[in-house]
């Protein structure tokens, strides 16, 4: 039986506070990933496209 087929009483229902916190955490992760992408993008301009090609 798929979890989606569970009757309403067996499912985990998030409280409003839990939903709010989860959304906040998701937004923070999105921001962090966005900043990381921007940093890598900016460095390709500074160092050139060969930024990842370097001697080990």
């Amino acid at each position, binding site marked *: 039986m798929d979890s989606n087929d569970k009757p309403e009483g067996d499912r*985990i229902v998030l409280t409003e506070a839990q939903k709010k916190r989860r959304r906040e*955490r998701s937004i923070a992760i999105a921001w962090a990933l966005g900043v990381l992408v921007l940093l890598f993008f900016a460095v390709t301009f*500074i160092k050139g496209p060969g930024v990842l090609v370097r001697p080990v």
Partner: protein
Amino acid sequence: MCAAHSCAAHPTKAGSIVSVVDQKAVELPPRISEAGVADYFALLKPRVMSLVIFTALVGLMIAPGHVHPVLGFIAILCIAVGAGASGALNMALEGDIDVLMSRTANRPIPRGRITRGEAMGFGLTLSFFSVMTLGTLVNWYAGGLLAFTIFFYVVIYTMGLKRRTAQNIVIGGAAGALPPVVAWAAATGSLSVEPLLLFLIIFFWTPPHFWALALFRSDDYARAGVPMLPVVAGPDATRLQILLYTIVLVAIAAAPWPLGYFDWIYGVTSLILGAGMLVLAIEVYRHRTGSQALRATRRLFAFSIFYLFALFAVLLLDVVAKAVAPLIW
């Protein structure tokens, strides 16, 4: 009813073995986190991080040559995140003793906001990204040093030394002293005497700073079973050690001036600030009981933070002044 892990099965009258565990009855509801961004931010030890950022910034600024501002920003950001990751891993590993100490009882794990597993995952993720980003975008010398710093703080200090020896913060202080070295390596791709001098200053600053704290928090540490020097050797021995380390600190902090690494502005400032540290350390040594003793240790603890900030600020101002002066004159 017995716990699921202790009696999953037992013999019945008929001699057959049947499971007596009612899976439904012992199944705990999954924990749904209510931790917010602020709780995760607290895991990063933001006050410690601010000192790391500042000392790393000084290491970056006094390094010779030109660093592109974006690369400099990335280096400081990675060092800060790496320091925060170390803090999160430290809290994950010390959740059991943090709950016993009043100074740490309000941290997210003792309060039940974040589990130790969540903190561990958070810390490991940030460690990985901070090291990889610094290595990839700046240089692997700095990236490797940052990885070593995190390793030293988490494995050597937190897991190895903290609960075993009264020398925990002496040896472990190396982790807190490395950020300016990492920053210098990020700027130059190499090491030199100057960042090692900064390392030594922070290294010898750590014992008087933390032992002053430990003197007025010794009950906390004793309750948690952490063998800080005042708990193991007693307050008087700690007072003597504070004084001795302060004398060494003041000498080491002033040494770069006569050796010609930093100029006279730094030298004079370090002597003035050092005199302040010495006076307060002597006060701690002299006053051993009552409110005067407590006040002396608190004053030394507070002044030691100002001392390190001010010492590094002078180096920073010196660099800025030298950069700006040609534009004015």
